[in-house]
């Protein structure tokens, strides 16, 4: 079944220069496997479309049931250069929570 990522995870995002990072945390330990399977860098990149110009890199933190994503060229230059309302990527985490993922009922 398809559910929004927000059903099984929460996030926080921030910036480093023109790069934004999104920490994705499984709500429960049992949700982590679905995060690893569903949140591939390619799918995350596609989800953000034109908002993110560069590549997406993913790191796994099984000890925290979490993934860390780096989104390159994601902030129109970042910091003071950016003309965006969200020049710091503060809302990128919320944007990712809207992503639809495919899970088995037992995984919820």
């Amino acid at each position, binding site marked *: 079944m398809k559910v929004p990522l927000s059903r099984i995870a*929460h996030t926080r995002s921030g910036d480093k220069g023109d790069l934004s990072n999104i920490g994705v945390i499984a709500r429960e330990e049992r949700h982590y496997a679905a995060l690893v399977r569903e949140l591939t860098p390619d799918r995350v990149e596609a989800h953000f479309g034109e908002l993110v110009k560069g590549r997406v890199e993913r790191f796994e933190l099984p000890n925290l049931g979490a993934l860390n994503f780096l989104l390159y060229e994601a902030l129109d230059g970042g910091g003071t250069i950016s003309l965006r309302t969200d020049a710091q990527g503060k809302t990128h985490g919320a944007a990712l929570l809207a992503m639809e993922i495919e899970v088995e009922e037992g995984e919820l």
Partner: protein
Amino acid sequence: MIRIANGQGFWGDWLEAPVRLVEQGPLDYLMLDYLAEVTMSILQKQKAADPALGYARDFPPLIARIAKLIRERHVRILANAGGVNPIACAKEVRRLAPGLKVAVVLGDDILDSLDTLLAAGHAMRNMDTGQPLSTIREEIQSANAYLGAFPIAEALATGADVVITGRCTDSSLAVAPMIHEFGWKEDDYDLLAAGTIAGHVIECGAQSTGGNSQVDWQSIPDMADIGFPIIEVEADGTFTVTKHDGTGGRVTSAVVKEQLLYEIGDPRRYTMADCVADFTTIHLTDEGHDRVHFSGIRGAPRPPTLKVSISYHYGWKAVGTLVFTWPQALEKARAADRIVRTHLDQLGLHFEKIHTEYFGVNACLGPAAPPITDPAEVELRIGVRGADRKAVDRFTRELIPLVLNGPPGATGYGEGRPKVREIVAYWPALIPRQAIRTRVEVVE
């Protein structure tokens, strides 16, 4: 065990937080973080205009306000409030709170020695683009190395009640008391990694006690009296994140994990001045009652370089807004955007970037925004940036005329035309550790 709290996650954070932290329960050390990347250039300009300025001006009055209490309760303060003029900051603290002993950490500010460093072969290439610093030499407004915790610990060893630094890594303000109290050495990198992660958890203030937290945010208690974070650290590097009893907010493993992942890169190689910390070794236990315990943290030796933060003039920008209302609010805003762009084109103005957002529709979330049909109002937000200040200034005159000669229903222009602002950009670079000499001074 020592208790270290953070009462300021950035310059502009809640003014009451450090006062409440001292009033509401036991503490040994209180750290306050004031410096963002661009703050240094603003402070450098203030110092150029008045040699007695160039530091966080909120800090000395705060210390005056809590001076009596921190003496009674033996709370020592660590703050990077010194900006580009730590000595002037220390003198002002001494003037307002004469009973306190104040020490400063110097050596981070390399603005005046940049040419010597460049001549000695330190290219200070931009870590993102690879360009050498010499390409923007004339535009530089500030240059500071991020110092680690050891010189700050040295300042604590003078017996100072208040330690003031310029640029240092945020977490080193938390690690310095651990080095001072527990005698950690430069090669104790597992311990330094634990301390660095502890510092990272509290460095953004209430973000680790329920602020900006997505997990069930509606149920977080009493955010109006949110308790700022405290770490209780043992000599073996294990620590507990908590907050004072009776304060608002929430400390759970979910909240703390959000902060752990905030603004990090590769979690296996979180590189700071004193060590490289591995976040994948963290063992975290939620003990309940607003207590989260950390153990098992491993690190690696510190890098041979220090990070340098350089700010430089990049150009000019302006952002203007107009509000369009129902019906067809979005269509009206799009039509207005086309008119502005046509005018800029006809005027022959060139910009590095013209950026349009439809605020209320998808300005922040972009393609991930939930669809809205026929919104009640939309804010058209157009920004430009470029090297030519005159062109940016001309742009600022193009929005308000549309109230009379564009699509119907435009409003929200009460602030007048937008302001032209200087873009001071940030240049991250590395420099060999030996090129930076630190020293500690007690300010009488």
